[in-house]
């Protein structure tokens, strides 16, 4: 169980970095332009959010790749134990994590295109919505993974 445990830890660390980047970008995308520069959100906006886009794409891709590998171990070694213990809601949330993660992966090209260059007002809303959906997916995946790991982590 050394390899899956090591991969799970790396998966978690990548997820933390992704969580920070996408959350910052989402808040900056929705922050109004009239906010005072010295306020909390003003300082948020002063960081060029577009620079997060490449990092988010790479971190998301790494995270889902690691998750896809760990999922094989999860299905064989962890999920049967969760089923025997009757943790059905946790398994439901985990199923949703899989579905959301796949949909989010396919959104990455459009997300990257949207952040790549200055855009019109209409596209700006699309960009903010895409970023928000990805942020929701990342938060959902992080929290669900964390809870499932707490219920029955590797080695338990």
């Amino acid at each position: 169980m050394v390899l899956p445990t090591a991969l799970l830890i790396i998966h978690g660390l990548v997820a933390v970095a992704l969580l920070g980047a996408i959350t910052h970008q989402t808040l900056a995308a929705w922050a109004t332009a009239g906010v005072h520069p010295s306020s909390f959100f003003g300082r948020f906006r002063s960081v060029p959010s577009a620079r997060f886009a490449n990092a988010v794409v790479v971190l998301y891709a790494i995270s889902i790749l690691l998750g896809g590998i760990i999922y094989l171990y999860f299905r064989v070694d962890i999920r049967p134990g969760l089923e025997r213990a009757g943790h059905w809601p946790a398994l439901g949330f985990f199923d949703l994590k899989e579905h959301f993660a796949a949909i989010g992966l396919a959104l990455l090209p459009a997300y990257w295109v949207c952040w790549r260059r200055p855009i019109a007002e209409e596209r700006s809303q699309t960009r903010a919505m895409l970023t928000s959906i990805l942020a929701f997916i990342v938060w959902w995946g992080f929290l669900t993974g964390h809870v499932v790991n707490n219920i029955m982590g590797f080695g338990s």
Partner: protein
Amino acid sequence: MMSSAPLHRFAFAFGTAFAVFYVIAVAKDLALFTVFPSLGIVLAGTQHTNDLTDPAMGFLAPAMYWYGWAATAALGALTFGVVVALLPGRWTRYFWPGLVWLFPALSMIACAYLTLPWFRL
């Protein structure tokens, strides 16, 4: 209006179509392949353990469909994206770009609906 650049059109069409195809693949159980991690084998199409072995032995060879569903959706979305990218820009310029977040959002709700049985056990 959608951008006329082929790359942009592909990216938007791919993300939108994947979400739709993915929900269809999950709802209709259309996996391009099925993974049996405990046996280390991958079989083409949707393969239910109970169809291959005695139902009582199913726990020994759990089947995984997620990779296959994603592959099915990716194949469909790739085809759709390439077609849209090859279309003349004037044909696609009246598509609302918000479709690229609206369809995935609706697909996520549909996935939540399909997952409801887990919460009734």
